């Protein structure tokens, strides 16, 4: 017999209200949610790069990256692509409907290591959703970081997520926004091509003084990392956030295992140095 202290149930989903939701682009929707319990909502905090498990009773549960920044507490923002049973059900929800969440989970970006450094954010497609969290975190704590470069590649101007707010960012002096699309359409004046084409616009940087964060489709990592290594950015200063199947979020169910690491507790943020040891990562 083994003695254990009485424990909370880490799988207990908590009710949260959909405060607001709207389509970003077709089949991609933005959700603002807040814990129903107001004190829980106000005390809830997280690190950029962490994720939530979101449940709809009778449909299931799945992990979603948090897209908001803890520097703006009270509301949790999610950007979600409609892609399966759970998201189909979620997209039928309306404002004020209830969903269930638990978390936050995962390690998040290594903010301490990033402080005082120049920050290079490289996003491809949906990868911009978790990176939006660190983007606004840096902007909200602007004096703690060096220069900020934000690269974002989408398939087309019409498929850019958060287009309005990201275009507004271009007017700020304290961030360099570099956007590209695979296929231009009328009125697009930016770069055309994959996200790596944006690297030529970077000024001279001191590689030791840069922290890069990357998220995008699996195929993107190889090419972006090649560029980052060309710039001589140290391997442990390249962070990326990964997606895996998850059923628990707390290192029990096994699905997100990578070697001896669990994406849900040891990730989802890994450094390029980690991936050299755990070859399944990217």
């Amino acid at each position, binding site marked *: 017999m083994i003695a*254990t202290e009485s424990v909370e149930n880490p799988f207990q989903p908590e009710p949260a209200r959909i405060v607001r939701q709207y389509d970003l682009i077709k089949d991609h929707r933005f959700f603002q949610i807040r814990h129903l319990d107001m004190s829980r909502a106000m005390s809830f905090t997280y690190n950029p790069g962490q994720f939530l498990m979101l449940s709809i009773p009778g449909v299931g549960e799945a992990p979603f990256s948090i897209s908001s920044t803890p520097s703006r507490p009270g509301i949790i923002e999610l950007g979600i692509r409609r892609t399966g*049973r759970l998201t189909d059900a979620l997209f039928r929800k309306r404002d004020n409907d209830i969903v269930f969440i638990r978390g936050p989970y995962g390690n998040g970006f290594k903010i301490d290591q990033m402080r005082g450094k120049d920050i290079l954010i490289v996003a491809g497609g949906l990868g911009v959703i978790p990176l939006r969290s660190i983007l606004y975190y840096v902007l909200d704590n602007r004096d703690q970081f060096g220069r900020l470069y934000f690269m974002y590649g989408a398939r087309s101007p019409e498929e850019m997520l958060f287009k309005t707010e990201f275009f507004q960012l271009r007017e700020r002096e304290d961030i360099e926004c570099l956007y590209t699309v695979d296929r231009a359409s009328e009125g697009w004046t930016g770069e055309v091509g994959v996200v790596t084409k944006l690297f030529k616009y970077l000024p001279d940087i001191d590689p030791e003084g840069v922290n890069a964060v990357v998220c995008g489709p699996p195929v993107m990592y190889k090419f972006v990392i090649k560029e980052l290594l060309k710039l001589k950015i140290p391997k442990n200063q390249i962070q990326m956030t990964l997606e895996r199947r998850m059923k628990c979020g707390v290192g029990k169910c*096994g699905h997100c295992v990578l070697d001896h690491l669990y994406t849900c507790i040891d990730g989802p943020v890994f450094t390029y140095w980690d991936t050299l040891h755990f070859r399944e990562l990217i």
Partner: protein
Amino acid sequence: MPHQLRLIRNDVAPAPTFQTGWVPTVRILKMEPKYFQAFIESLDKFGRVYAPVRRNGVLTWDTPERFEEIVLGGEHTMIPVKKLFHPMRFDMFRFDDSGFTPDYSSSEKRVIVGVPPCEIHSLLRLDEVFMERPVDPYYAQQRRDSAIIGYSCLPGENCFCRSTGTDIVEEGFDLFFVNLGEFYLVWVGSSLGHDMVLVHEDFFDDSVSHDDIKKYIAWRKKRDGMFKKSFDFRSMPDLMELSYESPIWEGFAERCLSCGQCTMVCPTCNCYNVVDVLDISSATSGRRERHWDSCMFVDYSLVAGGHNFRGARAERLKLWYTHKLRAYASEYGKPACIGCGRCVEACPVDINVLTVAEALVTMEVPAR
């Protein structure tokens, strides 16, 4: 009982001590065989007794109707004792529109009789996963509510627990019986175990003679000499790493049926899936179930949208053997394999820890 193999690699820290409830082995008692049945039958006051019994010709952990049904000391059950702590299927929650209510009803007070050393080790391995924070409350409750009565065994045809250092135990039991034929030596491993002894104190003798000790040593020697299977576990982490791109994985993949039997009979496999099951009702109500899953199944690493991180059979096999032979060792300093040989017995096409270990050395997939 000294533990032979604690660290696999020198550069990893010892496993964290989280077993706050265990008291060190307090003493070793002696029992005459004639008392054994009465003692086991007395245990039902501590909980429902489970033991290896035969059902439909298969040895399984279940509740014996009579003492005579209990099979001890050699043959192991097909499905390991993990099923009593990590059930094949259970309800985690009941839910309705207003939320999720935990369901802990599957837990009960149990006395599990006849757990061999390797399976005690398997529970300690599962503890590392389920008892690590945040603690899994379902597993923890059943673990808390279960007494473990260990029982010595002699190695079977496919046992290689000496190679994995799991042939002996020093913790993880309330009582442990070593059957020396003429008498039992009984290790008292916990306060509860001591309480069990106190119920029939007259059955136990605390004067163990020099002669008894000699008999115990002779038994250990005999047992150690009986193992027919072995492998060099210490070299496995490095061999796994060196063989990451080896064609042997494709070779095994061509043969693997992806039936998942190896994972279900493995005492340290803990993967599960979670499914919501609705009631047939207009109201939203139902239960959130947990089911055993297997990394050998095609949807194990499939994410919404259709990307499958381990669609190929070779990737799935490699994941399992990485976990058993390398990864768990890097994390916890001991192998995830406890050397019970169940995978050797279960696989219809002879893919198991031994054949894979052999292939990692010879770089050839062994013939069937």
